[in-house]
C-alpha cells in the first residue's frame, strides 16, 4: 500500500538532501573559519569564511522553501504554491527589517 498518495514523497527526499547539504557545508566552513581565527594567521580570510558559513546556514531553510514552491508549481497545487510563496516573502521581510529598518 502506498503510504502517501499525494506525490510529495519525492519532495520529502529532496528537502532532506537540501537540508543535509546546507548544514554540512556551513559546518565545514564554520570549523575551518574558527580554526583560522584561532591561529590568527589569516584573520581577514577567517572573517570571510565565517560570514559565508553563516549566510549558507541562514539560506538553507529558505532554499528548502524555495524548492517547495517549485515542486508545488509542478504539481499544480496552487493553494500550496501560494502558502509557500507567502512564507518566502515573510523571510524576505526579515531581510528588509534586518538591513533597512531605521535605528534601534
Amino acid at each position, binding site marked *: *500500500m502506498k503510504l*502517501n498518495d499525494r506525490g510529495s514523497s519525492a519532495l520529502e527526499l529532496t528537502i532532506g538532501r537540501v*537540508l543535509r547539504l546546507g548544514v554540512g557545508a556551513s559546518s565545514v566552513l564554520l570549523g575551518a573559519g574558527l580554526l583560522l581565527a584561532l591561529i590568527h594567521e589569516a584573520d581577514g580570510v577567517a572573517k570571510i569564511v565565517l560570514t559565508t558559513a*553563516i549566510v549558507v*546556514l*541562514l539560506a538553507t531553510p529558505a532554499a528548502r522553501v524555495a524548492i517547495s514552491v517549485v515542486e508545488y508549481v509542478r504539481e499544480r497545487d496552487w493553494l500550496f504554491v501560494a502558502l509557500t510563496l507567502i512564507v518566502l516573502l515573510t523571510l524576505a521581510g*526579515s531581510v528588509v527589517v*534586518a538591513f533597512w529598518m531605521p535605528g534601534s
Partner: protein
Amino acid sequence: MTVSLAAFIFAAGAVAGALGIVLGLGGGIFLVPFLTLVLGFPVKSAAAISLATVIATSSAAAAARAGNHLMNLRLGMLLEVATAAGSLLGGITAQIVAESTLQRIFGVVAILVAAVMLARVNRRNVINDPRADPGRLGDRFYDAESGAVVTYRIKRLPLALAASFVAGNLSSLLGIGGGVIKVPVLNAWCGMPLRAAAATSALMIGVTATGGAIIYYGRGDLQPLIAAPAVLGVQFGSWAGLRLAEHASAKWLKLLMVTILVIVGGLMLVRSLR
C-alpha cells in the same frame, strides 16, 4: 577569541545540544541562559547565537527523518505561514524592547516550559485502520512501535495556527526553537501523534529560526566567530545525546531539567529586576 573561550562555548553548546535531544527540546532554552548568566552576553546576542544553532540542529533532525513519512509536509508548510509571521514580528519586537524585558519574558517562559514538562501529555492519536481517510491535512505513516501503518486527522486547525504564531514570536524574541510550544499543542489538542508532531515541528523550526536570525544578523547581534563554536558544539552534543538517550532514565532526567529550568528562569527574573 581565545582557544579557551572557544572551547568553553563549544562545551556549553555540546551540553545544551545533548540535553535538548535527550529531552526532545532544542538546546536553545539551555544555551541562552548560559551565554547571558555565565558569559555575560546581552540576551539579544545570546538569542542570535542560539538561533544559529537551532537552524543547524533542526535542519539536521528534519533531514534525518526525511523519507519515513513522519513529517507532514502539507500541514508543516501551512503552519509555517503563521510561524514565519510570528518570527518576523518577534524579531522586530526584540529590537525595540529593553534588555530587562527580554530577561523577564525568558524567565517566565522557562518556568512555564518546566511546568509543561512536568505535566507532559502523552496521548496516542492514531487510527489503526490503514484505509481510514486522513482528511485534507492528516497523514499516515508506518509506526515502528505498533508495527502497522497508522492514520491521523488534524483537528482544531486554528489552534495549531495560533500556537505556531506564538512559537515563532517567542523563537525570535528568546532564541529558542519553539517546538516546546508547538509539539504539545499539536499532540494534545490537534490530533497528531507525538513523533509526527515532533518531526513536523523540526521542519518548521528551521524557517522560524531563520526569520529571527536574519534580523539579528543584519543588526549586528549575530557574531559569526562566537556562533561557530556554539553551532559545532550543539551539533556534537545532539549527536552524542542520541547515543546517550537510550541509556538515560527519562523520568529522572526530566525532573533534573525541570529543576534547572526553574532555577534558570528564576535567575533571569532576578537579574531583570536589577
